């Protein structure tokens, strides 16, 4: 993790004073482990569709299980009102710790403050809660990811040609990615956006259909140099359309990576050649670690940036299928993040694993 460290000075009122770990933070590993076992953790998600999401949940669940705890997943169907209601309800139920996945400050601040008052530690992922003291925020660097994948796009196309953007506003990560995209267009005047579309409610099929229309409009090889897919669900749809149309001249540069995506990138006939991403499973893992640090009474950084990794087809083996689990063997920095791990957590893992 390359997050900037910020000393948290609210020691007295910090969630460190959580009931379960009132013992001093320097207590022996064994008693720590006992105190941290059997925690009830709430994971409150803004949306939960797609493989990416499922893998993230998986990461959280597995890690909590390793610590001998139990996770309750609260889904909000992309409805912030429901998300804040879920947060309220998690506080009311006196969970030992709360994990947030996406959302925004406006909707969550009140609930998070309530949680902190109740001495329930909160660790958020991509929720924009930077203003609240005592909350650790994990963030994947969306601008960086867009830069990485667009950089590759520029490199492979020689920084010129027509490109198609599949993107939709309305989601903070998307809007961050758009910032990089805009910069990219300014810096590469020879790259021209000829079509832009995107529909979050029906991402794959809608993209597939619309991409087909665009291909018909630009029917000649070389009319379109590349597609920038700002979300892997879009990339899948675009890949299907291009592949089925046999337009091997067009390449797709995406963001986000799940097992499903990895298979598509590995497929030599697929136009999807590169994607920037943070391992969804390890996001979950790291997030849980920070929560347990808080439960243990440690002070944790206010912000933890998860460094994105860039994956291209060339990095992957040709002879075997890779999953996100073993991707680390081929791509440096992937999923190995030991961020947030501590000795006592390792001890806990070992103890609870028995």
């Amino acid at each position, binding site marked *: 993790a390359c997050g900037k460290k910020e000393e948290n000075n609210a020691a007295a009122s910090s969630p460190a004073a959580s009931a379960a770990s009132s013992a001093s933070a320097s207590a022996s590993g064994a008693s720590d482990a006992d105190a941290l076992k059997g925690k009830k953790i709430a994971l409150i998600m803004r949306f*939960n569709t797609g493989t990416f999401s499922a893998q993230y949940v998986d990461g959280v669940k597995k890690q909590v299980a390793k610590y001998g705890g*139990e996770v*309750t*997943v*609260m*889904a909000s*169907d*992309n*409805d*912030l*009102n*429901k998300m*804040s*209601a*879920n947060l*309220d*309800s998690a506080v*009311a*139920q*006196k969970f030992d710790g709360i994990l947030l996945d996406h959302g*925004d*400050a*406006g*909707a969550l*601040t*009140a609930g998070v403050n309530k949680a902190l008052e109740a001495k329930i530690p909160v660790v958020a992922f991509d929720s924009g809660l930077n203003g609240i003291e005592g909350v650790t925020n994990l963030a994947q660097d969306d601008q960086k990811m867009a830069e990485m994948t667009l950089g590759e796009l520029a490199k492979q196309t020689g920084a010129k040609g027509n490109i198609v953007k599949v993107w*939709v*506003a*309305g*989601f*903070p990560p998307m*809007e961050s990615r758009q*910032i990089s995209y805009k910069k990219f267009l300014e810096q590469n005047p020879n790259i021209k956006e000829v079509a832009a579309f995107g529909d*979050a*409610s029906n991402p794959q099929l809608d993209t597939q259909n619309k991409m087909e229309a665009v291909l018909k409009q630009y029917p000649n090889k070389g009319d379109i140099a590349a597609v920038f897919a700002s979300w892997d669900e879009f990339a899948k749809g675009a890949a299907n359309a291009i592949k089925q149309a046999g337009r091997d001249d067009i390449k797709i540069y995406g963001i986000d990576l799940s097992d499903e995506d990895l298979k598509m990138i590995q497929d030599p006939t697929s136009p999807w050649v590169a994607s920037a991403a943070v391992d969804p499973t390890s996001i979950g893992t790291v997030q849980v670690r920070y929560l347990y640090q808080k439960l243990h009474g440690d002070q944790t950084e206010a912000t933890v940036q998860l460094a994105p990794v860039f994956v291209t087809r060339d990095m992957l083996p040709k002879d075997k299928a890779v999953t996100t689990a073993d991707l680390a063997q081929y791509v440096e920095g992937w999923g190995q993040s030991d961020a947030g791990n501590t000795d006592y957590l390792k001890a806990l893992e070992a103890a609870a694993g028995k």
Partner: protein
Amino acid sequence: MKNRLLHFTFQFGALFFIALVILFFALAKDAFFTFDNLMDILKAISIVAFVAIGVTISLMVDGFDLSVGATVSLSTVVTATLMVWYQMPLIVVLVVPLLVGVVIGLINAFLIVKIRIPDLLATLAVMYIVNGVHKTYTKGYSIYSNMPMQDGSTAPGVMLKPFLWIGQGKLLGVPFPVILMVIAVICAHLFFKYTRWGRQAIMTGGNEEAARLSGLRVKKVRTLAYVASAVFASIGGVLYTARIGSGQIDAGAPMLMESVAAVFVGYSVFAAGRPNIIGTFFGAVLMGVMVNGLTMMNVQYYTNDIIKGIVLVLALAVTFIHLTRKKT
């Protein structure tokens, strides 16, 4: 005697059922039946309740307003942009979205009452249009305090504190949106039960031709019903913004189905078999209780829907098996 009992079961069957669900959760989880949690539930349903009241009104005049979800979305972003982009004072922020609701209601009414497009069709089309409008207005972006604008500058305004209080504040320990909801439910109920205009709406819904022949201006009544429906949705949108503190694109999309579900469960309450305000309220409560209770029970989130559906079926079955028996 036996008949009485049956009648009783029937009339209060659905309420009994809701009570049973609550009892079940209360026994299963200590944290469930606490004042705070019950208030949380009511707060969570307050927005849907407003939208559902609107849908109930449109159904009362034998219409069906599919555009409420889109109206919520539009009203949400209008409210937020008025503060964030234009730094308007509170009163403007509260009134303009309602006017937007009035306009949408009038468009619906025009298509349905004047052009005579069947309501489902007309409101579906309006739903698309309003959805498009709210996205075009914000260019697809969510609206939040001091958001970066497309031209690189920063939006001047912030979400006003008193505005946010509407969605997040408490009065005497009760969340303010809950108070608003209860007032709205009571007023709407009294309106439809005890005022002439309310009865006129019900007459129109019961048999438009009969109402017309009785000298009622049914077109006016239906127009007003659609306006009311849209205005309630707008209020829902304003509350939504106040609750979550930002203007979200497509915020209202899930509201349509949720409010319709509440209204339909409401058909069962008091065995009305028809849209009714009190029923709608209890319908929304049931849905809220289910969501809250099931999360507490740590039911896998993806099985929630199954249970919700089954409860819906049971609640409806209680009523309609009986309604049918009675008729034949």
